[in-house]
């Protein structure tokens, strides 16, 4: 197992861009973890004069917004929200996607037909509108945003898992497992899934980036959880002042951009590390 891990790490590290991405992700994760110690007070609290520009005050390095809230504190606490929603939504999407894809491919027949039509149905609904609909029905809470994002992003994972399972399902080792007396669930999740997982992991890592964008969009439109700081919400609040105090939008915008970029780079790196065959194109 250690050799396998080193192999993985070596292949990942060969992709320089992925290392940069990993570094940025780690910075964001670090900020998110450190936020409660760094800014112990509620970040939504008004702390000073409104519209202090960044780098003007040593107390508020990233300035204050139109209400006089500390942007640095909001960015740090927003990182928690963003990452949490991104990871949980991706996890939700992966679980739904793997379950649907694996069942469709392994059972086949009309079950496959039904599940794939369902997948296509979900794919035809415009994603953002679907998220907004779910959030407005369920309510503006962080859990519901997570579920909503998960529910719209599972389709590519389901299709990928299905394709992987289809090629693995008829392999002799699966037959050998059945000849050993294993049941279907055990074979699907214990034997086939580990073989199908590498490309699914890559896709899931990219779904995290997508989920961050969705979350920001929801918050920007004012449908996010009003009690929790979020980058998208900050942009939304600042958009009325975009001509005078554009930094209120720009700072969280930059944070979103860098995070999404970093997650995508990490995804590429994972792809190189987990699918060495694809690399030598």
């Amino acid at each position, binding site marked *: 197992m250690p050799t396998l891990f080193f192999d993985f790490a070596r292949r990942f590290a060969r992709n320089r861009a992925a290392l940069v991405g990993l570094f940025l992700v780690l910075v964001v994760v670090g900020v998110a973890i450190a936020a409660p110690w760094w800014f112990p007070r509620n970040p939504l609290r008004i702390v000073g004069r409104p519209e202090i520009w960044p780098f003007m005050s040593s107390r508020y390095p990233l300035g204050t917004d139109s209400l006089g809230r500390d942007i640095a504190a909001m960015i740090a606490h927003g990182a928690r929200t963003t990452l949490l929603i991104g990871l949980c939504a991706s996890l939700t999407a992966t679980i739904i996607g793997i379950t649907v894809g694996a069942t469709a491919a392994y059972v086949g027949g009309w079950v496959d037909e039904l599940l794939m039509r369902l997948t296509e149905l979900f794919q035809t609904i415009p994603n953002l509108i679907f998220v907004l609909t779910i959030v407005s029905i369920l309510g503006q809470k962080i859990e519901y945003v997570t579920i909503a994002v998960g529910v719209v992003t599972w389709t590519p994972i389901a299709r990928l898992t299905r394709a992987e399972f289809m090629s693995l399902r008829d*392999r*002799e*080792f699966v*037959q*050998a*497992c*059945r*000849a*050993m*007396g*294993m*049941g279907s669930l055990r074979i699907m999740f214990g*034997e086939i899934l*580990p*073989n199908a997982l590498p490309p699914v992991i890559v896709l899931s890592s990219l779904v995290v980036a997508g989920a961050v964008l969705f979350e920001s969009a929801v918050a920007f439109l004012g449908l996010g959880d009003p009690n929790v700081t979020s980058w998208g919400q900050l942009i939304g609040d600042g958009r009325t002042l975009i001509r005078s105090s554009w930094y209120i939008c720009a700072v969280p915008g930059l944070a979103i951009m860098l995070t999404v970029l970093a997650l995508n780079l990490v995804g590429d790196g994972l792809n190189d590390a987990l699918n060495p065959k694809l690399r030598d194109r």
Partner: protein
Amino acid sequence: MIMGSKAGPAPILSIENLQVSLFTRRGVLPAVDGLSLTVSAGETLAIVGESGCGKSLTALAIMRLLPNPPAKIVGGAVRFMGRDLAALSEREMQRVRGKDISMIFQDPMTSLNPVVAVGDQLIEAIRRHTDVSRHEARDRAIELLRQVRIPDAERRFNDYPHQMSGGMSQRVMIAMAIACGPKLLIADEPTTALDVTIQAQIIELMKELQSSSDMGLIIITHDLGVVAEVADRVAVMYAGRKVEEAPVEALFERPLHRYTRGLLGATPSAQRRRGSRLVEITGNVPALSDLPQGCAFQNRCPDVLDRCRAERPQLAPLLPHRSAACFAAEKELSRDAATIGA
């Protein structure tokens, strides 16, 4: 220990009139048609025939692992130790598979899960059907690896399948198959994917394991060398039917069915005179979708009679302990009897 018993005790497996059909777009094809077989404890039955004659489907039908669709058992019974396997629920069948009946597949390199260490796969096979702790299972697994002659078993335990050779992998497969002490082992072309020296070792190993455990063995092959090496009894299949069954020496001594004769004629052997040509069987196996009326072998048979084209020969006990479905052989034997009688 019963050595090569021809008329042993009650058979552990008896297949009666098994019918497997393939439901395809071109219609329902009889892939296995009225097959009856028995295997006793400690006995080795070889099923011989060329590709597509229904050998593997028979094996999968016993295990109830037929790919459905298109294949399905449409008739007959598979009785294992008195129980009809066809009547068991899927859950009950799972308890039979790997415990009472095990199976080894053709290509060992693809029969092991590539992402799981072989030792863990072996532990899984053991714990599937026996209630032992992981630790005990590990000891047992290492012992099994030794039993199938894997050198340095403890170190090999953590290897992944891609780190093993074909012969090694097949040994692991055999270890997994015998892990729970099955009463019957079905080996579907166990040596086809291996090179010749390894083949001999694997055959040797299987014979040895069988003699020490008294399990029944069904070996499916198209290699008559393997048959001569291990089998007690041979069933020859052609186009989904059993055309001849005989004890192994008798079959090699005097094949009755013209197809068996053709198979033996097409096999090289050390006794054969140097420079003599191998005789091939002309033509191809007829497609299941257009089997001729009468004997399926008629268009390739050197001794074809008018009768062979009109009616299908039934399996008949032509000599003690053996049967064949061939009018030409019947005629020949009755002529022999007449000459001896005269």
